[in-house]
């Protein structure tokens, strides 16, 4: 039986599934329910400084996009950090940690960008017995206008500075949560590392407008006729988050920096993919907000069963296993040739592969052969782009089949070379020529 216990920067939890800092972790009632359901840990919803709490809008806080069957694909929110009194939160954190000592209790923090503010709150959190803190440098709305959240996260120098203050003023591990609303995720990660962070977590939510009401011409969610950009999350953001996790994991400057993955994780498989790309554990929010806390049962069983099936004994056996296989485009093997192949027994003859290829790509799939409706790849035209695979409604009906070395590529009229060759040495690459001179 696979061991899925998690040790993330010294913070131990019975499994790698944490609830991310968000509404599900705003108070003891929810967090206790989550722990009863089996969640390995939580990042308590972001605390602000002492004083009158922030206020939220009283209209809709969430917007969403759905599939036709109403499956929630993406969610956005305009909620702020906790709107509960600081002392109430601290008291509850302490009690819950005391009652659930085996679960990870990380506290998310966001206070003004002044050392004194951080110095003031850190001892209060430490006193609760929490396992660590997460610095909320990502919140894209409401707080950023006040010089917090993403306003810090978008300036690497500020990140480094605040992380350093925290490291100097607490013994707790510091996890720096990064905003994706930047051009190069490696910069804030490097800054956090320079400031001494123990880990990064990403991604926070993405600036977004989920819909526009075409009757009122107002963005959704609409508050009294107006809307604002909110933070986007859920299954739709997973590919963006995975790339950012991988970029940090494979950046030589940040390699080895622990990463807590966030972004659309809904199933055990999502979590496993993030971990393979280098994440040490997985934080979940939207999936829990969609289905309730019980989903963690599927996540725990699924991850464990998959690891058993594949012979992975512990999380260390899978973390980062895919990282070396993420590379830059220029290092991809240009001598690798694949062709689409359509399984005629599985084909239901919808013709989508044909029309996608015919209208928008390479005219490499028939629709009629000898007067009969028939879809077949024309190898002499197929560039192996994979579009047909992606638009085919039948799983495994169209597959990409690599050509073995020596086999004739009918498109180029040349046999497939057994030699690895990438763009850096390709004759068409001006840079390659310069290098050769």
């Amino acid at each position, binding site marked *: 039986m696979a061991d899925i216990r998690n040790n993330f920067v010294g913070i131990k939890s019975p499994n790698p599934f944490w609830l991310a800092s968000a509404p599900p972790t705003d108070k003891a009632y929810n967090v206790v329910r989550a722990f009863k359901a089996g969640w390995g840990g939580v990042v308590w919803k972001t605390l602000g400084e002492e004083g009158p709490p922030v206020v939220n809008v009283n209209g809709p806080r969430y917007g969403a996009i759905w599939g*036709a069957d109403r499956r929630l694909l993406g969610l956005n929110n305009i909620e702020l950090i906790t709107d509960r009194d600081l002392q109430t939160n601290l008291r509850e954190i302490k009690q819950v940690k005391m009652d659930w000592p085996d679960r990870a209790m990380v506290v998310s923090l966001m206070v003004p960008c002044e050392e004194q503010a951080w110095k003031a709150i850190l001892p209060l959190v430490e006193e609760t017995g929490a396992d660590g803190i997460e610095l909320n440098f990502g919140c894209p709305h409401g707080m950023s206008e006040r010089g917090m959240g993403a306003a810090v996260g978008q300036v690497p120098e500020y990140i480094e500075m605040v992380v350093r203050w925290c490291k100097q003023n607490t013994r707790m591990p510091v996890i720096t949560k990064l905003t994706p609303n930047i051009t190069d995720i490696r910069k804030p990660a490097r800054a956090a590392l320079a400031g001494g962070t123990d880990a990064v977590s990403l991604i926070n939510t993405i600036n977004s407008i989920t819909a526009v009401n075409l009757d009122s011409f107002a963005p959704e969610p609409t508050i009294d006729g107006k809307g604002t950009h909110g933070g986007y999350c859920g299954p739709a953001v997973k590919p963006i988050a995975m790339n950012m996790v991988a970029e940090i994991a494979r950046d030589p400057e940040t390699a080895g920096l622990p990463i807590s993955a966030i972004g659309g994780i809904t199933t055990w498989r999502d979590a496993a993919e993030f971990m393979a790309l280098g994440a040490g554990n997985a934080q979940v929010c939207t999936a829990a907000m969609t289905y309730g806390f019980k989903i963690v049962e599927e996540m725990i069983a699924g991850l464990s069963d998959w690891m058993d099936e594949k012979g992975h004994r512990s999380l260390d056996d899978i973390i980062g296993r895919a990282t070396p296989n993420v590379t830059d485009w220029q290092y991809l093997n240009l001598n690798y040739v694949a062709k689409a192949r359509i399984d005629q027994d599985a084909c*239901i*003859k*919808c*013709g*989508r592969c044909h029309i996608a290829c015919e209208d928008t790509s390479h005219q490499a799939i028939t*629709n009629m052969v000898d007067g009969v*409706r028939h879809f077949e790849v024309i190898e002499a035209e197929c560039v192996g782009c994979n579009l047909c695979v992606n638009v085919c409604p039948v799983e495994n009906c169209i597959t990409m089949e690599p050509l073995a070395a020596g086999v004739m590529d009918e498109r180029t009229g040349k046999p497939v070379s057994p030699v690895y060759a990438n763009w850096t040495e390709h004759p068409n690459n001006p840079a390659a020529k310069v290098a050769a001179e």
Partner: protein
Amino acid sequence: MPEGRFKEGIAGERLEASQYSENFSDLHPPLDHHEALVESDRCYFCYDAPCMQACPTSIDIPLFIRQISTGNPIGSAKTIFDQNILGGMCARVCPTETLCEEVCVREVAEGKPVQIGRLQRYATDIAMAQDKQFYQRAEPTGRKIAVVGAGPAGLAAAHRLARHGHAVTILEARPKAGGLNEYGIAAYKSTDDFAQAEVDYVTAIGGIDIEYGRALGDNVHLADLISTYDAVFLGMGLGGVNALRAEGEDAEGVGAAVDFISVLRQADDLSALPVGRRVVVIGGGMTAIDAAVQSRLLGAEEVTICYRRGKEHMNASEFEQDLAASKGVTIRHWMQPTRVVVDAGGKAAGIELEYTALQDGKLVGLGQTVTFPADQVFKAIGQTFVGDALNGSGPAIELEGGRIRVDEEGRTSLGKVWAGGDCIFGGDDLTVSAVAQGRDAAESIHRALTANGRA
């Protein structure tokens, strides 16, 4: 339990009064908004879609379904009506399981086609509820065209001709328009007087006059039409019913299934409609099913369909056969009627049938017989075109196989005369095919009338 249930012979009020409306409610209730979105999302938007190829009116099915999925049911309805102005009725009565849905790639893949018929109804219902009219008449051409019969073929022809600016007069023998949509379809397939609502919707374009009580060969003559109008479209149905050719056929209680169906459709009070306690329907097509199922729904205790060939030879679709079975109708194969058993009072009391088999590809009687008690027997063994009225009222028109011969554009052997629907040879007796023939004949008429720069 009403006592009517046990009345011998043919009697009404066999059921509780409340049971009738339940029994004759919509066979396929309309999809609601969310159901339509989910169902439309199942469509793969196939290239050169098989469903569209299978539709006799060539409706752009993937497009209209996509329009539903994007929240544009009105645009969807227009896509449907562009090809089939009776798309609302076709959505209800088309045997989709043998047309568009049979070839749906999801039927092929998973045995569960996209519910094209119900989606079509969803879109057309919305447009018709809003009385959304998509077509305007062209400038009047001054041309007058007579359409004989206000059934699906005639209505489709009339609408298309009116769009082109021609003045159309429809001559209808019955007191209502709609043809088989009004008189010949099981009540649970067309509830809430939909056939008349559709007639109103189609004729709302203007330029279409309907004269009722005008029957060809009676008070209308083809020769007069030809001389009075610029063109004539014949869209009559089938007036005759095939005989059983069995002894006792004239007994009280033996009748045509189409008449039973027609009376039922026109009945204001279904409970007053008499039906036998034991009913036998002879035939294997849709009419047999409609008559048998509705007999059961009226409270007949035993209803049996007897068909002279096997299940696989039945014209009624698999779906229709299953529907009949689910309503408690028994279907017996391989037997043909030889004699109606008649009681002393001259009423039907049973029917004797002979077992049959195929021998050397030929249907033969095996000599062995069986007798079923029956106080009502319906003939549903095919209808025939009554050409007498036609050829007695004007110049002879060529027939083929007992029906009017037309070319691919619907032209008959007479110069100014076109025809479509069940009265022509080579059709498949489907509403949707009649619509296609009426529409295409109208285009042919328009081309003929506008040739030489006229009109």
